[in-house]
């Protein structure tokens, strides 16, 4: 199985409007206007939460789609940022909590996440395929149990509570609308960064390494360094998602970074399609909607079965996720526009 990500090749000179794409502009307008029609619950618990997990899945997509490295440790990296926010900022658990202002805490937390991600990457780049998956799973599990049993730093099973998003410019950033725009802004930024990065020299090199590491090494590229740097970049994305996650929940505990959540992130990326950056967000919306509302459809006893079945069907019908499915049925609709094309 090869996880090849599609990137558009050399493009003719275009004006910025064409470059951005009509669909992106339409999507942006729709998302900006979304708070006008949505309830507070849908703004934060569905849209905000989906975007947080979308960014997390995007960091996995970056590694898997462009670098060929499938990781289960993305939630661990996000958790490191989340715990850093709790420890360096304020919490009500009476353990640590240095009370630093948010504009110092956030860069610190993201940096800590990125560095740990690079470390995880440095350990796991020597492996390939299923072994990368296993080693990252081991790291995720070990971190989970360590957090659960360590009281000096992680405060054990109960973790940290009472963590509040910052209030500045007269806005409480955990209020539904500001928090939605915060998530949207970050998601858009991450998405644009990944799209841009995939076409940059580094992105191209990474994809070349994914396709044929031996040839790249022979050409004089430092394969390990490129891979570790990709982990570092993915760590920045995951760290940002972790900061939003801890502000969203107002708390962080080992349950936040459990193995089931790690698998959720993988499922989101796979359902959306590991080859497409936008797929991460699409997958997140599907998964979050399912997790939230499946209990209303089939009752409390069997709702996890329904969620599992939907995942199975999507992956069975289309190994490349929802976007792959669309890619396969599109030709049937596209005949008209092909003839009318420029």
């Amino acid at each position: 199985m090869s996880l090849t990500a599609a990137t558009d090749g050399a493009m003719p000179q275009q004006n910025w409007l064409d470059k951005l794409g009509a669909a992106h502009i339409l999507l942006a307008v729709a998302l900006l206007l979304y708070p006008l029609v949505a309830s507070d619950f849908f703004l934060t618990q569905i849209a905000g939460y989906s975007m947080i997990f979308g960014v997390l899945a995007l960091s996995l997509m970056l590694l898997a789609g462009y670098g060929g490295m499938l990781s289960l440790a993305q939630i661990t990296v996000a958790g490191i940022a989340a715990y850093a926010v709790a420890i360096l900022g304020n919490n009500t658990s009476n353990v640590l909590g240095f009370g630093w202002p948010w504009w110092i805490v956030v860069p610190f937390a993201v940096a800590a996440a990125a560095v740990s991600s690079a470390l995880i990457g440095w350990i796991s780049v020597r492996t390939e395929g299923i072994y990368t998956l296993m080693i990252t799973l081991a790291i995720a599990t070990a971190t989970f149990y360590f957090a659960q049993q360590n009281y000096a730093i992680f405060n054990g099973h109960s973790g940290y509570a009472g963590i509040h998003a910052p209030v500045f410019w007269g806005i409480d950033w955990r209020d539904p609308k500001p928090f939605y725009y915060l998530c949207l802004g970050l998601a858009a930024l991450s998405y644009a960064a990944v799209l841009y990065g995939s076409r940059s020299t580094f992105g191209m090199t990474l994809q070349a390494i994914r396709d044929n590491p031996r040839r790249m090494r022979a050409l004089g590229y430092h394969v390990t360094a490129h891979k570790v740097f990709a982990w570092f970049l993915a760590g920045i994305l995951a760290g940002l998602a972790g900061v939003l996650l801890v502000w969203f929940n107002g708390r962080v505990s080992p349950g936040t970074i459990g193995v089931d959540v790690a698998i959720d992130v993988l499922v989101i990326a796979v359902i959306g399609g590991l080859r497409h950056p936008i797929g991460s967000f699409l997958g997140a919306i599907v998964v979050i909607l399912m997790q939230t509302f499946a209990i209303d459809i089939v009752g409390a006893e069997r709702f996890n079965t329904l969620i599992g079945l939907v995942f199975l069907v999507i992956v069975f019908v289309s190994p490349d996720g929802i976007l792959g499915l669309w890619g396969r049925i599109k030709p049937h609709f596209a005949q008209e526009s092909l003839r009318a094309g420029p």
Partner: protein
Amino acid sequence: MHRRTLLALALFTGLTAPSMALAADDAIKIGLLATFEGPFTVLGEDSERGAMTALAEANGSVAGKKIEIVKGSSDASPDSAVRAARKLVEQDGVKVLVGPLSGDEGLAVKDYAKTKPDVTFINGTSAAQDTTLRNPAENFFRFSTDGAQWMAGLGTYAFKDKGYKKVATVAEDYSFPYTQVFGFMAEFCKAGGHVPSKSWVPIGNKDFSSVIAAIPEDVDAIYVALGGADAVNFLTQYQQAGGSAPLIGGSITVDQTVLTSKGKLRDVLKGTPSAGPTADTNDAPAWKAFVDAYKKQPGAFPSPSLFAHGYYVNMKATLLALDQVGGDVSDGGKKLREALSKLSFDTPTGKVSLDKNRNAVADIFLTEVTEGSDGNLLNKLVKVVPQVNQTLGIPEDEFMKLGAVNRDNPSCP
């Protein structure tokens, strides 16, 4: 570009449509939050039976209004409990919420309750002390008692009647077992006993060999506060390692999920004293009537677990208070909360009323494991400790001086 346009449209409509589907009707919605997934699924399902028993007694309505139950599921982690509570309150629009089930969940939901002053929260079975004792929420009520109250009488009984002077403790590593150990030691240490070693193990631990090795040789008994599979694993391994010290059980250590297990474990368990909010051989007619009503629920156990009991009591209190205010929660639940604070009623296990922190004062049952006439192990009622309050009968200022419950407090080595 077709693909992306359609994608955008799909996203947009998909995310807005459900928010428009809020309908208004005359039913009263009650949110029911329990663990329908994760390690406590079985307990969560039994708690639902308890809540449904209370609802069936009221014929599914109060003050002429139908009760609609909206279920929310957590996996016993505080995050998932708050997420489920948020969904019930913010999306389904419940004004009354019953739950959650376990200790740390209760602490998290209490914090959430403070941000929703118009919603009334009634506990399920979560039994951490500080859910109501320190920094409580005005709109969080607990008609089930806490884990320290459940231990009332046990410490004294172990010291005086059983003659244990030195006891080691083995318990799971989170807020509910801390509270249980606290409740046991508060009495045991006061009576003159010593606890030289305390072991805390993570939930779901499989290998207890290092824990067993750490238990001092010369203890008179071991106090075990582990739940379900953890209890069975520990007891089996302790026995295989040649351990022979008698046991003292936490409230969920010697319940039916452990007592029904097969093998030599049965011999070890016989004679184990314990305490909790229920007893299997309670002869009171009210308890027997409750057991019969409970057994009508699908999939019921031979005897209701303390989770079924706790959710029953809390749901019953909710329905009684709703009846008093005519099912009217349009004032942001103010009248309902007043009615709840003043509520005092007879449960299958005796009278329950609330203290100023909205925590229950109720009877506690001291029990001992015996073999029933049919060969099944059950908890025989030894003594009823009447009307235990949250400070275990100790004056409040003196009790607060004992400090917050945690791994190291209390201590009497």
